[in-house]
């Protein structure tokens, strides 16, 4: 019931977020058609604004965006302006004027999903074992070395890791392509570059969760009952230990799936991460709002899933 209510609540929440972003991007100085060179005449400038309805008041632009604007037709009747959010139409990108926003998302999202999904699995795949290991070896050399590795991944940014990976594994050895997209081999280096950072964080969070769990009363109980150390770890401590990671998974996954500007940039991958940054910088209003919508829905749904997982993992968490 609680989750059904939260799920239904996503709709007004998304609306608030989209509305906020709609007005926020229009507050920033400059507009989509400001260029290094002025258009030939004010008439051209006006025509450009009219074409994309930027000459209308903010309110009517907003109604048009939602698809709730009625316009007077030449014959005197009133008709709803075509398109709009309620029709599932996010409009044309103002920067890439020959593409609609949905068109760009449709082409770029699968790429970002594949890369982000791979990086997520990679991050969990090495982060959780590393975290468990360092927690178990807490205070010993193993912990020290493992923590060092995890922390290095956290504080070496993608724009350093990426070029290094390319230098060694692409240009010098020729094992992987230096960039672009297309075959499974193209996924490997960007996946690592993207996943290492998140994996490092997962390792730290798992280590903390595991240390907590190992000190908790029921793990002590289990030990006292003679459950094998591995059994204690996997069956009793792990479900608790992984909770901070689950909590972090929602935002992490949303970040990963909507693409990463840095990694897509370095490997020249046609995902949507580059678009989010470039459209904000380029004041591509329609594109920003479309991508915020996508990001918000993904994040909200994932966070809901996380909370849901939480309540399954830990029955003590009650939602009344």
């Amino acid at each position, binding site marked *: 019931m609680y989750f059904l209510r939260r799920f239904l609540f996503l709709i007004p929440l998304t609306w608030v977020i989209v509305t906020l972003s709609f007005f926020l991007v229009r507050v*920033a*100085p*400059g*507009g989509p058609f*400001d*260029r290094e*060179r*002025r*258009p*030939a*005449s*004010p*008439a*051209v400038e*006006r025509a*450009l604004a009219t*074409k994309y309805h930027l000459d209308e008041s903010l309110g009517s632009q907003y109604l048009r965006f939602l698809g709730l604007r009625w316009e007077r037709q030449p014959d005197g009747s009133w008709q709803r302006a075509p398109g709009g959010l309620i029709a599932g139409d996010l409009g044309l990108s103002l*920067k*890439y*004027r*020959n593409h609609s926003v949905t068109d760009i998302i449709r*082409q*770029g*999202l*699968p*790429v970002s999903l*594949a890369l*982000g*999904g791979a990086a997520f*699995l990679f991050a*969990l795949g090495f982060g959780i074992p590393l975290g468990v290991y360092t927690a178990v070896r807490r205070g010993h050399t193993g912990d020290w070395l493992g923590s060092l590795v995890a922390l290095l991944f956290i504080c070496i940014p993608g724009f350093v890791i990426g*070029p290094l990976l*390319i230098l060694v594994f*692409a*240009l010098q050895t020729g094992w992987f*392509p*230096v*960039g*672009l997209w297309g075959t499974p081999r193209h996924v490997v280096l960007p996946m690592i570059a993207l996943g290492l950072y998140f994996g490092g964080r997962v390792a730290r969070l798992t280590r903390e969760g595991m240390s907590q769990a190992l000190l908790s009363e*029921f793990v002590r*109980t289990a030990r006292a009952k003679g459950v094998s150390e591995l059994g204690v770890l996997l*069956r009793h401590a*792990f*479900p608790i230990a*992984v909770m901070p990671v*689950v909590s972090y998974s929602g935002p992490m*996954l949303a970040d990963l799936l909507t693409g990463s500007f840095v990694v897509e*940039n370095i490997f*020249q991958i046609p*995902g949507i991460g580059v*678009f989010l940054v*470039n459209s904000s*910088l*380029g004041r591509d209003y329609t594109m920003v709002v479309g991508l915020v919508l996508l990001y918000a829905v993904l994040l909200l749904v994932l966070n809901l*899933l996380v909370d*849901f*997982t939480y309540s*399954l*993992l830990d*029955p003590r968490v009650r939602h009344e």
Partner: protein
Amino acid sequence: MGCLQSLLPSRWSSFRSSFVRFLISVLGVGLLGVPSIGCRPEPRADLIIHNGMEVETIDPHVLTGLPDGRVTGAMFEGLTRYDPETGRAIPGLAHSWDISPDGRVYTFHLRTNAAFSTGEPIRADDVVWSWQRAADPTTAADYSGFFFYVEGGQAIVTGASTNLSGLGIRAVDPLTVEVRLVNPTPFLPDLCGMRIMAVVPRWAVEKYGDQWVRMDPLPCSGAYELLSWRPNDRIRLRRNPHYWDAANVGCERVDVLSGDSPAAALNLYLAGDVDFLIDKVMIPPELNDVLRKRPDFHTFQYLGTYFVRFNVTRKPFDDPRVRQAISLVLDKRRIVERITRLGEQPTSALTPPGTGGYQPPPGLGHNAVLASDASAYAAAMETNRAEAQRLLAAAGFPGGKGFPPFTYMFNAGGGGGSRMHENVGIELQTALREDLGLQMELRPVEWKTYLSDMSRLNFDMIRGSWIGDYQDPTTFLDLFLADSGNNRTGWKNARYDALLAAAAAEPDVSRRFDQLREAETLLVRDEVPILPVFNYVGLFAFDRTKWEGIYANLTDEHPFRSIRRRTGGAAPVRSALSPAAAGTP
């Protein structure tokens, strides 16, 4: 205790079911993306070009960006096209043209075999309609200012007249187009090769409106036709079988990649995934000094100047002496030798030397530009510094005392050139502090803020640059006319405007150049609303032993059609043209 034990297994099973389900759903999301990989076993294109940033539009009339222009130039052609070697106009859809004795009427003769890629012939009406569409302000073509040279063009572009047939172009017969000009315009054939004057398919535009370029198949008037277009990935082109010169088009299939990162572009090139790095912006400036020594990286002069704008509407920059003092102390040689490092020439003028045969006048601080060796340069800079200090004192700020704090704005972020702007700013800041005692704050801003502040004159000093569109000094000098939308300094000078107007009406070339030189002297020696720094040097990369048909030229025009793979040791051959055609300038 008991209840705890009974809890554990159930927790475990619920954990297993939920967490595993969670993972599976994630995996599922990831698998959704799998179709995007692994199923494109397309063969490599014959030629892969890295074209820089993603193309914004391929409508030749409304495009503004250089990457857009390059790829669209391969798809759409006008009455003329550009020679890959010189960058000057050569016959395109028109095989020749006649000029009236007063230089104001051009008659173009179309080819009988000119056709769109979908087979429809191209006739005089198509040319006339295309020009009218481009000039029509409702098309919203930023560059329609080039129709100001054509009779009636200014009235149409500014919206004063809505009668499109008032544009000075008409179809005399299906194969003859007549263009009437306001002034004798010797560079008209060069203008006719520009994208804004290209021929587009009327029926497609009338049917699909602004989105006509998404039509499939897209009727193209140029050497290549569009196969596919994936944003931020690549545009795929194929030889247009109906192109009048199809036999001389160099490659069957061309992939045009787009991307933001110079480092990635260089990596792709070094790994052999890209054959031709066409955009200088896509070559990491940090490596300029190393790259220019490689045999496959080629530098060339082109029409571009890097300068600094003063806001002359703000005190104390309204005083020419202040602007002169600041201009004199900048160590331009240090900038080209240590920062840009492509062999750029420091300059004291706006127009690059040799623009359409014009030589710019010496500007302020020209003695340093001329200095042949290090000691002569040091001496010249010493003289200039002393002069600058004198000028600043005369303006009321001896030793920089009392000079208000001010900022230097530049665009940061984005492509590889951004760090260069920062580094130039740091050099300027150092020079002003050490030589004049001025405190200048550096203000990096992102691109749109930069543009918006520049056009609203919301700055003290700001980075500027200009790339010429055609080979004539007016492509630079028109910038600082009082009513120019690109002036952006607040500087207005009646004498300057009058000299340019006189030059426009002057049929004699050498007298015209004298008038332009006089005007430019006002701009760069006496009034200095701008501080010219250096002339750009172009840089591109391709392997000369494998490719031919790419040449350095002043307008940075490198038509895709002439690029071909070199076949065993043959000498470079220019694509067969008819250079003897009448009217070649």
